[in-house]
């Protein structure tokens, strides 16, 4: 029931906003729907805390410790982003960047995107997982090109083609999984693609088929995670789309894609009885981290800078899950949570910063503290949080990743440390002049909404100090899935 | 081996030599009809041969023995090739002594003689044509060999009669996707080798594009007649190779008898009629490729043949 509400609210919202999205109050409706989704997700969480893992709709949907917190996270960030997008899109409209017709598209697609991600998270069927991932791509393509500038159309096209091709490969992987499962679970497709069923018989699945399937799934969904060298779409899409879209892409979509990879990895691990899938994740993760940090140096655009930072952090998570084991998996899950919160907060702040300065180029953004102190502080604190400063939650998860790496794979530790240091220098050096310094920029026509930024940062701070027992328990149980 | 078999062998050669101009005439007639032109009679090639043989041969002043002997060599090679190809029956002696690879070699011999003879006179066109012909040969031969390898793999032998035998064995009767690839590739090779559209236009003398015509430009009378006859025979031979590889139905596989041979001849004529009209149809509907596109065309043929091999290994292995 709660699952139906979680998925249903945004779906109804998408239909509703497709009709009334051009109205003055559409942004408020968007917030209300997101709030309803969040409440439904909260109800779901309470139910799971009371009753444990559950499934619904003839086992087509299921909630276990691994996806419950992601559902909650997605609903939360979806809600805060809608709160942020209300003044942000008003300012954009006031600047003449978007028309009301485009706003209708924006609101409707935003909710559709939320629906797709929530379906992807809650479905038990690997086929539906694919369909939902593709739907998430399709709904965001038009969001990325919302401004219809040359650059945004180019970015959206790149995003569309690259992710379209990637996701097609993932479909091939899904088909191969089905090939392997069919022999074990019978030809009835409604059960042979169910993750819970596959997980139950994973030891008996044909290793060659599953191994090949995993390669395709990893490359396919990995494209959406933004793993190097398939990350080309990511900086462009983040930089050229509206900032709320960048926030949900970075904060949510990448997580959902990684979630898809991990679900597949669990089955592959069971079928292969070898460390190969883990090694592949580690390799891709490390490559993405290092690659992204080197590109961080060369960025001139603030949103591109943080887009590369997202690639770096997805790399760290992928590396953590690749190492496996209870601690590393725990760290990976924690990092998923805190990165999502921090990065969306940063994009909120960066969005208002670019609106204030009228440019996304970092050398044009100066003296935020003087114009909008809250934007300046939000950006500064967000940057510190994402760079892993204690006591923020990112520090905790990165510390766990590093210590595990030092114990199990010592060769990787210096690489990670150097990458983190470079990222620190690159981002921190850029932040200072932007936040401090002088400017003549006029304040924004609408007061910026920095509440989401600080809510996220407080949550990240809290997670760095104290993890709620229920969440910690979920992390532990989910980590157990990776290690059994 | 009785003398009768050798007589049959001679007979087969004669049939091939005799039918070849007719086949060329048939293709010409089909083309004319498809293009809404008044069609020449099918025996037009014979008339041409008769006319040419009655003329007095003119030779360039610095033509060497090579130039004079080339028509005879080329013609003889084509007749020999016709003897090797089991167009009517698999039971004849010459076909047994040479396999399909030797056949490719024979065609290459003819090509070399033609090219040398064309360059012998030292005119610009001759050299041009020879050069182009050698380039085509360089591209078609690998493709042709690959097509043949498809058949070799399937039958497990390089001898054409054995391939026919094996294809006609009822238990082997199945659809071969690989042969479909090979067949398409073979048609492309056939077009290129016989100077047909879209590689070369046999009915024009455009100096910018011609290949075959450029090489025989200096010939006259009986030499020209033999050259033309040889080229018709080549087309006929290629058609027969196609039949042996891809549609061997009707070819006599039992010991030689009048009835079997008559039936085989009937089947051959029927297949030639169909193949000739298909060729004419294809030529009418396709446009001449520019010369620098020809390598692309032939690479495609080569690739298709290789694909056929791969598909055979994957699906039928």
């Amino acid at each position, binding site marked *: 029931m709660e699952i139906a509400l979680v998925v249903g609210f945004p779906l109804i919202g998408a239909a509703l906003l497709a009709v009334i999205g051009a109205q003055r109050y559409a942004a408020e409706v968007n917030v209300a729907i997101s709030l309803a989704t969040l409440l439904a997700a909260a109800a779901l969480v309470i139910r799971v805390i009371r009753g444990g893992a559950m499934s619904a709709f003839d086992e087509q949907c299921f909630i276990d410790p691994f996806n419950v917190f992601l559902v909650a996270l997605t609903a939360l960030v979806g809600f805060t982003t809608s709160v942020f997008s209300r003044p942000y899109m008003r300012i954009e409209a006031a600047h003449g960047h978007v028309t009301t017709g485009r706003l209708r598209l924006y609101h409707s697609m935003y909710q559709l995107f939320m629906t797709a991600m929530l379906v992807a998270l809650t479905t038990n069927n690997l*086929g*539906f997982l*694919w*369909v939902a991932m*593709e*739907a998430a791509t*399709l709904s965001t*393509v038009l969001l990325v*090109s919302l401004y*219809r*500038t040359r*650059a945004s*159309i*180019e970015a959206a*096209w*790149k995003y*569309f*083609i690259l992710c*379209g*091709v990637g996701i*097609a*490969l993932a*479909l*091939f992987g899904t*088909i*191969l999984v*089905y*090939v392997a499962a*069919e*022999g074990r679970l019978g*030809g009835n*497709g*409604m059960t*042979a*693609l169910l993750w819970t069923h596959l997980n139950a018989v994973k030891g008996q699945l044909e290793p*060659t088929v599953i191994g*090949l399937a995993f390669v395709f799934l990893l490359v396919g969904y990995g494209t959406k995670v933004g793993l190097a060298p398939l990350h080309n779409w990511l900086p*462009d899409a983040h930089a*050229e789309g509206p900032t709320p879209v960048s926030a949900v892409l970075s904060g949510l979509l990448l997580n959902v894609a990684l979630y898809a990879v991990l679900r597949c990895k669990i089955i592959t691990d069971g079928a292969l009885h070898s460390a190969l899938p883990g090694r592949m994740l580690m390799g891709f993760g490390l490559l993405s981290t290092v690659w992204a940090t080197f590109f961080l140096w*060369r*960025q001139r655009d603030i949103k591109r800078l943080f887009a590369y930072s997202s690639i770096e952090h997805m790399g760290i998570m992928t590396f953590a899950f690749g190492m496996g084991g209870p601690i590393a998996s725990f760290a990976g899950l924690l990092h998923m949570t805190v990165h999502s919160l921090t990065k969306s907060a940063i994009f909120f702040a960066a969005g208002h910063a670019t609106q204030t300065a009228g440019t996304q180029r970092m050398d044009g953004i100066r003296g935020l503290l003087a114009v909008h102190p809250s934007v300046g502080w939000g950006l500064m604190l967000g940057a510190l949080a994402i760079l892993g400063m204690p006591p923020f939650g990112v520090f905790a998860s990165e510390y766990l990743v590093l210590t595990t790496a030092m114990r199990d794979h010592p060769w990787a530790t210096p690489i990670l440390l150097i990458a983190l240091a470079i990222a620190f220098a690159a981002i921190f050096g850029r932040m200072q002049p932007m936040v401090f310094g002088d400017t003549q920029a006029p304040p924004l026509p609408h007061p910026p909404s920095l509440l989401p930024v600080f809510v996220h940062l407080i949550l990240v701070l809290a997670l760095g100090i104290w993890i709620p027992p229920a969440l910690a328990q979920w992390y532990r149980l989910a980590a157990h899935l990776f290690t059994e | 081996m009785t003398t009768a078999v050798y007589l049959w062998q001679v007979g087969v050669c004669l049939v091939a030599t005799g039918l070849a101009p007719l086949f060329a005439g048939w293709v010409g007639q089909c083309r004319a009809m498809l293009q809404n032109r008044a069609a020449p009679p099918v025996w037009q090639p014979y008339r041409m041969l008769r006319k040419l043989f009655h003329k007095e041969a003119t030779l360039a002043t610095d033509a060497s023995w090579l130039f004079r002997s080339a028509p005879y060599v080329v013609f003889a090679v084509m007749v020999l090739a016709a003897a090797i190809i089991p167009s009517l029956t698999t039971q004849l002696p010459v076909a047994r002594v040479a396999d399909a690879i030797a056949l490719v070699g024979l065609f290459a011999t003819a090509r070399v003689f033609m090219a040398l003879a064309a360059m012998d006179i030292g005119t610009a066109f001759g050299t041009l044509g020879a050069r182009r012909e050698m380039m085509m040969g360089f591209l078609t031969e690998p493709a042709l060999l690959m097509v043949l390898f498809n058949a070799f793999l399937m039958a497990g032998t390089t001898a054409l009669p054995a391939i026919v035998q094996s294809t006609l064995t009822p238990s082997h009767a*199945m*659809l071969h*996707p*690989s042969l*479909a*690839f090979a067949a*398409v590739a073979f048609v492309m090779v056939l077009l290129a080798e016989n100077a047909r559209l879209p590689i070369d236009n046999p009915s024009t003398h455009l100096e910018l594009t011609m290949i075959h015509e450029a090489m025989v430009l200096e010939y006259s009378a009986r030499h020209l007649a033999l050259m033309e006859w040889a080229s018709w025979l080549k087309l006929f031979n290629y058609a027969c190779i196609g039949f042996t590889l891809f549609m061997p139905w009707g070819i006599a596989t039992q010991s030689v008898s009048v009835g079997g041979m008559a039936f085989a001849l009937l089947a051959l004529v029927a297949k030639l009629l169909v193949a000739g009209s298909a060729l004419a149809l294809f030529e009418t509907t396709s446009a001449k490729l520019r010369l620098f596109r020809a*390598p*692309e065309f032939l*690479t*495609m043929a080569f*690739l*298709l043949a*290789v*694909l056929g091999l*791969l*598909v055979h290994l*994957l*699906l039928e292995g």
Partner: protein
Amino acid sequence: MPAPTFATQVLQTLAGALLLIAFAMLAERRSRRLVTLLIWQGAVLVTSTLLVAVTAHLSHLFFSAMLTLVLKVGVLPWILLRLMHRLGIERDNEPLVNVPTLMLVGLGAVIFAFGLAQPITALATTVIRQTLGIALAVILLALLMILARRKAFTQVIGFLALENGLFFAATTTTYGMPMVVELGIALDVLVGVFIFGVFFFHIREQFDSLDLHHLESLKED
């Protein structure tokens, strides 16, 4: 191995035809003919799906064959042709450089695909699984086509060819995905093509051409 049944032979021949069409697409320069080839590919898919449906007595495959017929032979080509007409690119000719090299790379892709599928084919429980290699080859060739093309329209056709390869893999190796999933996939493809269509107009509005050379301003800086 015992001689495969006649239906399997036909299926293998159809698989071969699919591969042939994929290669033809790789080398085809004219947009109009590419759409024709796409229709042919769809028709081969419908035939093969029907064949599998008849031989395996699977009723849901009939539906998916009908769906393919409507979608891939009917609606999608129609949309594409209309788009071509409205964009005025019916006579477009794409300058492709070095087709032979492209073909050789394609051949390499086929060998790679066959090699990759070999272990699965080796433990095939159904003869049908042997077509997995061909399906993979078709997918890789379509990928290659997307990479090699510089026009938005032809990239989309490559994308649809990719989808066809996937569909072929699904029907012949596993007797089709579950119906609901298949419907979802079909919906995604349809919506995708619509969005592509919208995009063409955006691209042309902004760049006055569908040539993707213009779409190269976003580089790593």
